[in-house]
């Protein structure tokens, strides 16, 4: 029953978000000392914060306030930005990150699938080895190293692309590429091995035995079935792009969620960190839920169970 499958997944997702929020709440309470009394917190807002969070109340009540606020979309007040509501900060920075993230995902998926399929079809040739090498480099080179190198060589040395900010199309190229390479490499690698595994399947033999040409077999049977396992790595892929954005946005000075998160950590802005963590977590949980739903819709074995 497809509906039951979706409903189950939805319940799990909601519970997960709840547990995440709770863990984050208690984790922040574990910070030694008084986080709201830190040097970065302007004195005039300390009182506002105290009231907002009900810091004078017992812990359970604070928890209750926290959850209540959460349900109303209130993620708290930022410590270092003079009490700016966290939610506002997120809403301001999100469009930039989403734009960058989507570009990176499109690039990763299209290039990744392309290289994976091509490498599998030309197994053992130079093209295959080249892909394998690129994949290995792609998953080994840390995103900040890559970002730094790109920035230097393309931005400073060759002066081909702008090195910072996010204003026009050219300025999206390097960050999107830096952000996409790791995921692109992973997708290429999985697609290649999925294709190679599928090629040994019995139904491929059957397809050839029907008199289909290689091209027909590849496109109608091999690629279609090789794509299935790729869906399962889409969830983690989105997570990778999200965390990759921390570094890439910082290096390229892009005013997105990632950069705010990093500076929040550096400034010990606990409330902002907490709020953003819940946001990221909820977003990823939601993404995973959507991937699960998509999988249920596409795999006939689940759709018609």
């Amino acid at each position, binding site marked *: 029953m497809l509906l039951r499958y979706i409903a189950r997944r939805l319940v799990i997702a909601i519970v997960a978000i709840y547990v995440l929020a709770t863990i984050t709440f208690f984790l922040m309470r574990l910070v030694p000392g008084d986080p709201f009394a830190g040097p970065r917190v302007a004195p005039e807002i300390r009182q506002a914060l105290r009231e907002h969070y009900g810091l004078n109340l017992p812990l359970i009540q604070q928890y209750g306030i926290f959850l209540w606020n959460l349900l109303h979309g209130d993620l708290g007040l930022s410590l270092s930005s003079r009490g700016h509501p966290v939610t506002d900060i997120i809403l301001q920075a999100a469009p930039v990150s989403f734009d960058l993230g989507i570009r990176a995902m499109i690039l990763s998926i299209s290039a990744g699938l392309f290289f994976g399929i091509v490498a599998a079809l030309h197994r053992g040739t130079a093209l295959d080895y080249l892909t394998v090498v690129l994949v290995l480099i792609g998953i080994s080179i840390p995103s900040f190293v890559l970002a730094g190198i790109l920035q230097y060589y393309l931005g400073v040395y060759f002066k081909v692309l702008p090195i910072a900010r996010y204003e026009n199309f050219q300025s999206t190229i390097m960050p999107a590429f830096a952000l996409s390479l790791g995921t692109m490499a992973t997708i290429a690698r999985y697609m290649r091995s999925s294709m190679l595994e599928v090629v040994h399947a019995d139904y491929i033999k059957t397809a050839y035995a029907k008199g289909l040409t290689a091209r027909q077999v590849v496109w109608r049977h091999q690629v279609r079935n090789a794509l*299935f396992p790729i869906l399962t790595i889409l969830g983690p892929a989105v997570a990778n792009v999200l965390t990759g954005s921390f570094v890439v946005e910082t290096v390229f000075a892009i005013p997105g969620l990632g950069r705010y998160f990093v500076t929040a950590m550096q400034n010990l802005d606990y409330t902002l960190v907490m709020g953003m963590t819940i946001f990221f977590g909820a977003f990823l949980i939601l993404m995973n839920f959507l991937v699960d739903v998509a999988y249920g819709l596409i795999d006939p074995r689940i759709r018609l169970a």
Partner: protein
Amino acid sequence: MSTPETILAVEHLTVVFHTYAGVVEAVRDVSFTLGKGEVLAIVGESGSGKSVTAQAVIGLTPIPPGEIRSGRIDYRGTDMARAGIATLAKIRGAGISMIFQDPMTSLNPSMQVGKQIREVLHQHKSLSSAESIAAAVELLRLVGIPEPESRLVQYPHQFSGGMRQRIMIAIAIANNPDILLADEPTTALDVTIQSQIFRLIRDIQKRFGTAMILITHDLGLVAGSADRIAVMYGGRIVEEGLTDQIYYNPQHPYTLGLLNAVPKLTDSGDAPLRTIEGLPPLLINPPDACAFADRCPFVMKICRQKDPGYFTPVPDNRAACWLHHESAASQRAAFTSARVPA
């Protein structure tokens, strides 16, 4: 009895595989013919080369690591061993079809069953969608799938193993092929289903007059179905003859061993199963000797030194065994008396 017109002639086929361990000679100098409407059973244990032979006939030998080193596979004038990809694609699914062993994995799990049947129809004939749908329905009905119209749009996982094999049969006979290759079609099925499916294959073969090559490791299975039986061992055909002769008058120790291995109703309840001692040979650089020598209870010195070639001890038969040489009288007598009466 008039000999049926020959539709397939395999001549001196040798297929090798390049592996890490060396070059494995899976099929060594195999020759046989198949007449129109005739049923030939190729019997042998794992590794005897029977599946590789069938794959070569339909042109599905995986070319690296496989290689058709020599020989000719003649089907209506085309040499299947050397034909180009386009020619082979036209013949597969139309002139020569094949059903495989494991029905659970032989169908594309993400494609509707009806589409998979219609695929083979559209590949070789020009039909409209309506025509192919109707044809697919008829085919499903023919292979015994109830309510075929509604089942066309279902997926393989919604069918049992036996039914999936029926669908495979439907695909294979869709274009009324001259030759149907069945590679252990019932091995992976439940025992109770095996005979049903087997009967279905037999009925279809009789009805359409399709020539068939039936590959199996089970000599007991083909008694009532095959016209001729070829026994393979170590990549070679060690005996070939009419069905009755193979069962009642085997001329090769290996054939005898296979027959003896089938438990009989007259055996006492706790009698040990009769087996053939030893393991099949590794076919890397096989020596010029009889491949069965190490396991043969009637082995002679010459068996290890020279390959026997074929003898014809009885009509319509050939056997690759030194026992039939004029000088082997005493051992041959031992062989004859060792045969358990059927």
